[in-house]
């Protein structure tokens, strides 16, 4: 156990040192604990966003239903979109990035541990801030895409919460992207070249670059929207020469890279899971890495495909039709490489593997409908209909969520030292697969049969076929609810179970499986020296020229243990109040903007400054500025 040294200067607030107990979670800078909190919060928001979806589906199960008022419906579908994108999929990815980037690259933590905690608490406050709007006059009701000038035409504070809430959420991810990029580029274990990194790390790099370059764009847009909504400026208003279409450009310049931010982590996960349960390496590693980078790069050049109905010039539409078509090529490359990873392998269908294969199959469907959107003349029929809703749920639910859940089943033993039940996992998969397809497949058809999206009422005049499809979708959504409950039961039984998970339950390939389950606070007793891609696997098996592999006796490795003490005196950063303290400033500032409180704004700004100073003055670990090594376990 650590203790403050006798020579430490007295401070008003003593440095929290506890590594256990509930308070230690509030002050932790341990990437693993932060990752778990991200995951738990994201799971909670998944249930909330799912409830919003179920209410939407209940309203649309019948034509002309009066279950929900238009106002209630508009708030629910808006918050469903915001929640799933910003409060579920992104933080789930952050959970895995947090827990596994350091472990997979052989590091002990991220480059900036307190900044890491800052990202987490900023995300939490963004979510709480957004949801507080339900109690403060109404939640955002202008769609998750918040098109101008509707966003300023809606009375009340609903869209002010949208503008400010998303601004806070964006800060969380922007800051994290800098953290992870610095970590990956600077803290890889000796011998881990770029081409020896796990594919999950490659996808993580690509995602962080996407965040780094797209978030500032939406930040600018949201500042402009905040000013239009709160201070009557005219960025997006026609009155003084502003242009509502400007909002769309800014939003989608962020929004399209955003969808790759949403899918690439799941692609990274699937690129880890498929090889492990096929017992052979990822097929076409370089191609998959390059395709990921290509998708990201091209992803900045397709945004207008969300605006094909706005009335831009045919030249612009043609250019973006082409770029949108061609972005299908790197995506296809990945799909084929995943299939051929399995080809010739020895497949075991654990729950993680089922979800990973499900990802490949469902994402293919979403990708195909996506390419059909690029046929601009017909896009004018497809856009703003349920055909689009079908597309993005296939890629975001069938893709991102399936991938994320695969990651949960795969990495659960490493994170918690317990196994999830394979039997319940199988039930979870099949009910989820059934419910998901029942919910979203009919939407392709109801959209093409004329059902627009974002409509609070299903018009009877669309006909009985469309009504039938909507009913089937609702049934599918309810099956997803049941499936999710099976998942929650699985999590609960795992938590209660005494059965300890081994360090390497799956005979896996990457460095995180070298650690204990769960890992010790400092991850590795000895930082591994990397001599190959899939380093951990190469410590278990030797590959012959012909590609055959034989097990090798345990023990041999090049790991350099300078102190020879197997991790007895490893210097880890200490917990800190400052990240949490500082992030409290954001809701204060947020409410001050919405309620136009100058005093609140001043308090919030001062709070933030105090937090910043306290943080900067504080050393990463107590005793850092002294020669004696501080004890840590």
């Amino acid at each position: 156990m650590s203790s403050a040294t006798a020579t430490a200067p007295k401070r008003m607030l003593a440095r929290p040192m506890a590594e256990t107990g509930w308070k230690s979670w509030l002050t932790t800078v341990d990437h693993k604990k932060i990752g778990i909190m991200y995951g738990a919060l994201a799971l909670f928001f998944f249930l909330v966003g799912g409830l919003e979806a179920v209410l939407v589906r209940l309203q649309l199960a019948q034509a002309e239903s009066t279950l929900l008022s238009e106002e209630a419906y508009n708030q629910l579908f808006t918050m469903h979109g915001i929640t799933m994108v910003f409060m579920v999929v992104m933080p789930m990815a952050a959970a895995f990035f947090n827990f596994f980037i350091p472990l997979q690259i052989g590091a002990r933590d991220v480059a900036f541990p307190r900044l890491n905690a800052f990202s987490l608490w900023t995300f939490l406050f963004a979510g709480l801030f957004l949801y507080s709007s339900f109690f403060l006059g109404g939640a955002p009701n202008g769609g998750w895409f918040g098109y101008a000038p509707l966003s300023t035409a809606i009375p009340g504070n609903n869209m002010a919460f949208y503008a400010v809430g998303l601004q806070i959420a964006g800060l969380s991810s922007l800051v994290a992207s800098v953290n992870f990029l610095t970590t990956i580029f600077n803290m890889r274990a000796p011998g881990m070249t770029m081409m020896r990194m796990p594919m999950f790390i490659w996808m993580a790099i690509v995602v962080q670059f996407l965040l780094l370059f797209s978030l500032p764009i939406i930040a600018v847009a949201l500042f402009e929207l905040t000013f239009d909504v709160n201070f009557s400026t005219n960025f997006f208003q026609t009155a003084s020469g502003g242009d509502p279409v400007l909002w769309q450009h800014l939003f989608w310049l962020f929004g399209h890279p955003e969808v790759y931010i949403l899918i690439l982590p799941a692609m990274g996960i699937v690129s880890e899971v498929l090889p492990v349960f096929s017992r052979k390496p990822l097929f076409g590693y370089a191609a998959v890495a390059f395709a990921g980078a290509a998708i990201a790069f091209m992803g900045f050049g397709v945004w207008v495909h969300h605006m094909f109905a706005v009335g831009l010039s045919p030249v612009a539409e043609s250019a973006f039709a082409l770029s949108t078509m061609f972005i299908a090529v790197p995506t296809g490359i990945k799909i084929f490489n995943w299939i051929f990873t399995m080809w010739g392998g020895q497949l075991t269908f654990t729950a993680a593997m089922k979800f990973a294969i499900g990802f490949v199959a469902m994402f293919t469907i979403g990708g195909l409908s996506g390419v059909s959107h690029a046929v601009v003349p017909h896009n004018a029929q497809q856009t703003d209909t349920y055909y689009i809703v079908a597309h993005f749920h296939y890629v975001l639910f069938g893709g991102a969520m399936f991938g994320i859940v695969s990651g949960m089943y795969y990495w659960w033993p490493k994170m918690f030292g317990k196994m999830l039940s394979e039997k319940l996992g199988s039930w979870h998969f099949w009910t989820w697969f059934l419910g998901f397809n029942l919910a979203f497949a009919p939407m392709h058809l109801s959209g093409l049969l004329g059902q627009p999206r974002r409509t609070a009422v299903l018009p009877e005049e669309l006909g009985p076929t469309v009504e039938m499809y909507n009913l089937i979708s609702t049934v599918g959504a309810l099956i997803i609810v049941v499936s999710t409950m099976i998942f929650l039961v699985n999590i609960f039984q795992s938590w209660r179970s005494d059965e300890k998970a081994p360090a390497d339950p799956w005979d896996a390939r990457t460095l995180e499986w070298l650690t204990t389950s769960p890992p010790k606070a400092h991850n590795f007793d000895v930082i591994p020296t990397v001599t190959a891609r899939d380093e951990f696997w190469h410590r278990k098996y030797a590959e012959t020229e012909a590609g055959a592999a034989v097990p090798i006796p345990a023990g041999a490795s090049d790991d350099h243990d300078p102190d020879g003490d197997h991790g007895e005196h490893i210097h880890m950063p200490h917990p800190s109040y400052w990240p949490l303290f500082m992030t409290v400033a954001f809701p204060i500032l947020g409410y001050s903007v919405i309620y136009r409180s100058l005093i609140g704004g001043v308090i919030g700004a001062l709070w933030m400054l105090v937090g910043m100073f306290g943080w900067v003055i504080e050393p990463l670990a107590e005793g850092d500025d002294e020669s004696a090594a501080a004890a840590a376990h």
Partner: protein
Amino acid sequence: MLGTIRERIRRRDRGTRLQSIALLAVMAMVLGACSNAPQSAMDPQGPYAQDPHDLIKVVFGLAAFIFVLVQGLIVYTVVKFRRKPEDDALPVQTHGNTKLEVFWTAVPALVLAVLAVPTVQMIFDLRAEPDSPDTMTVEVIGHRWWFEYRYPDLGIVTANELVIPVGRPVRLEMTSLEAGQASNAVIHSFWIPALAGKRDVVPGRINTLNLQADHAGRYLGQCAEFCGLSHANMRARAVALDPADWDLWVAGQQQPAATPAGGAEAAGAALFANTCVACHTIDGTNAAGIVGPDLTHLMSRREFAGAIFDLYLRDEAGNFTNQPNLALLADWVRCAPDLKAMRPTGENAVGMLCFEDVLSEADAANIAAYLATLR
């Protein structure tokens, strides 16, 4: 032994599964032509809808083929390469295949390049000003939450139903206004799937859309860009008339409204002049309001309130009769926000006011009787 039998069964299953997939794809196409989906985008009734439809059928076919190929590969792989109990040694650790990579990069790229040509061609063709001398221009103005139609060459202003002549190209010029101003307007989207794809209706901008109906009929559509509270209650209609009917319609629309002789209709007209003129126009009276729809020939239409309510009663088959829906009209006049979600008072007010404090039920009935004369 057992493995082989199971494999054989699964191969048969796979075949059947592929057949059912193909069948489903065909059904999806067929369903598009069903008349029980009157707003279908898969049942083109004019050239501007037909051309994209023909192109997308090719694309859907291609997508179906790729779907079968990829899903088939997946199914085959998970069946053929399951780990068997005798699999102790690891499989061959294949790392990749450059030839395959080149193949599945180049072939999709080539297919897309081929697809791009008719796509780009059609983008330009659909947008071009129709070269027929019969082309008619109609202005479409999006309001919250109804569509207004102006025929500048004919001096006609209507709402909710875009009446057009059969077989002639119509060039729509569209923008969004509230009470004549762009400053309070929001983005809508005009969409009649049977006749054309949709195009957004944007404040501060004039967007054009070509459409043409090849057959007489009533075509359904809806606003397709989220525009707030009653977005779902903003419907569009296109009514295509044969030449003789078209001429009659134009002539009728160009007449001012008749003044009622007496009775309930005259009482209603007097009430109208006191209560409704701030927002509505009736040619031939002093009503010249531009907030709400032009009502001069209200009863020449079949639906009102953003085309969500019937102006005439329907028979059992669902067809319109000649009986005006007087009760509903009276309810609407008396307190419209009770029937359609609107926000006529308060900050950023939009929509029709509730008049129940000003108009009694008898008053409303009289106004409805007057409106029923506006044919």
